[in-house]
């Protein structure tokens, strides 16, 4: 689809990205990404090494901490090109979540200890926020940290922990003061997953994969130097985390890549000319354009010094709606050709992952603050309806 960012400078930057990716991306990884197949640990770590070698692995980090020094506009372009070229989207738990938090709030020793290992991929981080009783209402979390000599003993459980099976570190929100307003008794702690008392149960998802887990913490010792920032300020840090790269949450690059893939499938199956299919795809292309134009407009406002708050929630709502709609159009195009179980004798290209992507991507409107929560944020914080 049409690139809105297409000045000569933009084009030169795109070319630079393309050239590097072409020489680095492993063909197997490329093939899996382009077909919407589940990605392996190897796909991620191999690609992280390539990006790290070039200094591109953490686009939004400040230069002094290892970022490439790109402008917001360049980051959007890079994201778009990376998706277009079928690079695997690296899990953001280290690079987009705890890394920026440590840069903003962490102690110097924490930064020196962890940031280089996040960039290199030596450490794989996962996120310990949600609990079975604390999802949308995250602040009601119950995992407890009790004071002990030189640190804390943490007990409780966390859930929906993506890729915990690969992780050696987890950043957790824990309750350090049960006697104050619930948001004010929460701290953020960094926990070594190899410690005694940490255990894991994989959760089988609707698409048959096991990418999320439940994590159990039983009297796990966390020394004081692994508490992020101040005690009882964890809620503030968690909120700041949600604001990082908030212009990226529309997932424009991801949507454009998927649109391209659905169009290819429509062509391959000879259905691209059917009015229902053509109308649906063109409408979604325009939807993507609208969300991209909105992103760019908000960005321009920020660059002109206007303060943008919770408005970016709209990007998440619309972005995920578009992506889910695209997986559904893919199924419409496929018809019965998408219905065979994964890897069975009945699979038909190019629809071998269509049902599973539809199923897996139901999560997009649930995780990271469900779309219901995002709309409530818009209504209360932007529209002032409270």
């Amino acid at each position, binding site marked *: 689809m049409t690139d809105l960012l297409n000045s000569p400078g933009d084009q030169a930057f795109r070319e630079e990205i393309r050239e590097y990716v072409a020489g680095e991306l492993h063909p197997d990884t490329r093939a899996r990404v382009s077909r919407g197949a589940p990605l392996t640990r190897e796909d991620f770590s191999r690609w992280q090494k390539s990006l790290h070698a070039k200094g591109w692995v953490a686009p939004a980090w400040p230069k002094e901490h290892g970022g490439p020094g790109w402008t917001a506009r360049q980051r959007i372009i890079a994201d778009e090109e990376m998706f277009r070229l079928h690079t695997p989207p690296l899990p953001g738990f280290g690079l987009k979540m705890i890394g920026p938090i440590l840069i903003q709030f962490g102690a110097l020793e924490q930064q020196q200890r962890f940031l280089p290992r996040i960039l290199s991929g030596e450490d794989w981080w996962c996120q310990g926020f*949600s609990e079975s*009783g*604390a*999802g*949308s*209402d995250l602040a*009601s979390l119950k995992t407890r940290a009790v004071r002990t000599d030189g640190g804390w003993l943490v007990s409780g459980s966390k*859930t*929906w922990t993506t890729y915990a099976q690969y992780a050696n570190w987890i950043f957790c929100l824990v309750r350090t003061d049960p006697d104050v307003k619930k948001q004010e008794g929460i701290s953020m702690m960094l926990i070594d997953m190899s410690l005694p008392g940490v255990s894991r149960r994989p*959760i*089988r*998802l*609707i698409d*048959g994969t096991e990418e*999320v887990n439940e994590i159990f913490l039983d009297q796990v010792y966390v020394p004081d130097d692994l508490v992020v920032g101040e005690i009882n300020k964890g809620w503030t840090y968690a909120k700041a985390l949600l604001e990082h790269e908030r212009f990226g949450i529309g997932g424009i690059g991801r949507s454009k890549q998927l649109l391209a893939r659905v169009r290819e499938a429509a062509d391959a199956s000879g259905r691209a000319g*059917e009015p*229902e299919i053509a109308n649906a795809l063109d409408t979604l292309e325009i939807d993507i354009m609208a969300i991209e134009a909105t992103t760019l407009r908000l960005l321009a406002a920020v660059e002109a010094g206007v303060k943008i708050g919770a408005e970016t929630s709209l990007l998440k709502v619309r972005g995920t709606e578009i992506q*889910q709609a695209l997986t*559904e159009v893919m*199924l*419409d195009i*496929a*018809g*019965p*050709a*998408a*219905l*065979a*179980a994964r890897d*069975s*004798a*009945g699979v*038909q290209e190019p629809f071998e992952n269509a*049902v*599973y992507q*539809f*199923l*897996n991507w*139901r*999560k997009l*409107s*649930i*995780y990271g603050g*469900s*779309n*219901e929560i995002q*709309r*409530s944020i818009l209504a209360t914080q932007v529209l002032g309806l409270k």
Partner: protein
Amino acid sequence: MIDFKLPDEETLLLKATAERFIADHYELALRNEMLTASAGQLPAHWGEMAELGWLAAPVSEEAGGLGLTPRQVVPFMSVLGAGLVLEPIGPVVMHCAPTLARALPSDKAAAALAPVLAGESIELIAAGPANAPIRATREGDDLVLTGSVPLLIGGAQAAAFWVVAECEGAPLLVRVPAGEASVEAYRVVDGQSAARVSFKGVRRAAPEAIAGCEEALAYGNDLAMVGKLAELAGLIDRLYRETLEYMKLREQFGRPIGRFQVIQHRMADMFIKREEAQSMVFLAAEAMASDDTAFRSKLVCAAQVKIYDNARAVLRDAVQLHGGMGVTDELPVGHMVKRLLLLTRLDGGRMAGLRRFRAAA
């Protein structure tokens, strides 16, 4: 004439047996165990289904069946659909058996159907896709069948196929033992056993073929659709009930989330979709009694479009409102969603339904 009278005793009895069957055999953990069987293995409870008389339900009494009306069978099929059965009950009971009962004179139908209704032989209608029908060509006294069915539910478990073959511009029904077809077994997304069934120059004696079967095939296709819509209506109903229950149990922000207005409105919408689905499947079942085939087909297509649309909307909301739990394999919701996806996409979907609705003036 369409009549919305309440279900009679036979209907309720059949439905109650189905409910007991599901309670006994289809608890989630038991079902998950069944999914580990190979796709070609015979369905676990087929014999019991035959003993219960289910396989004979909508077949006329002259052909050896129970002579139940589509309206009487719908609640039963709804229970089995919502119960996520893995046996090919729809393709045999709602499609193959009633089609044969109409396509053959009753004595011949009774003879052909006896092993099917007794549960000794699983037999299926095998029709190619609309744009690639199976062809029959005459060679002397033989018919030679060529073509394939890419996805046939139960295909790997069948003993014989009743092939719908185009011959000189008209359809024929030709019985082919499974051993003479090429059968490639696989599972579909909801765990049911299926197969790609191909006929590569299969020879049958021409007099064996049933000609003049257009009316029976059209009736059978419509009835099979009613069976599928009954399953979908059952799934919609169960998704609605389980989601409603969860909205009352799940607490966030200090109260059950069902007390938030945004959830209330979405549950109210889901209720509306469920009511519409129930109404439309009964409408379609009633229409099956009509001699006016265009009228019948129009109503069945209308029900198809409405129920497919509602099923998709209910799928989205049931998963979303269950939150993270909705995308796991640990609750029945995830499994129902996969069944629902399968059922709404086995044929041409809503677009094909709309086209047929428009054509059936």
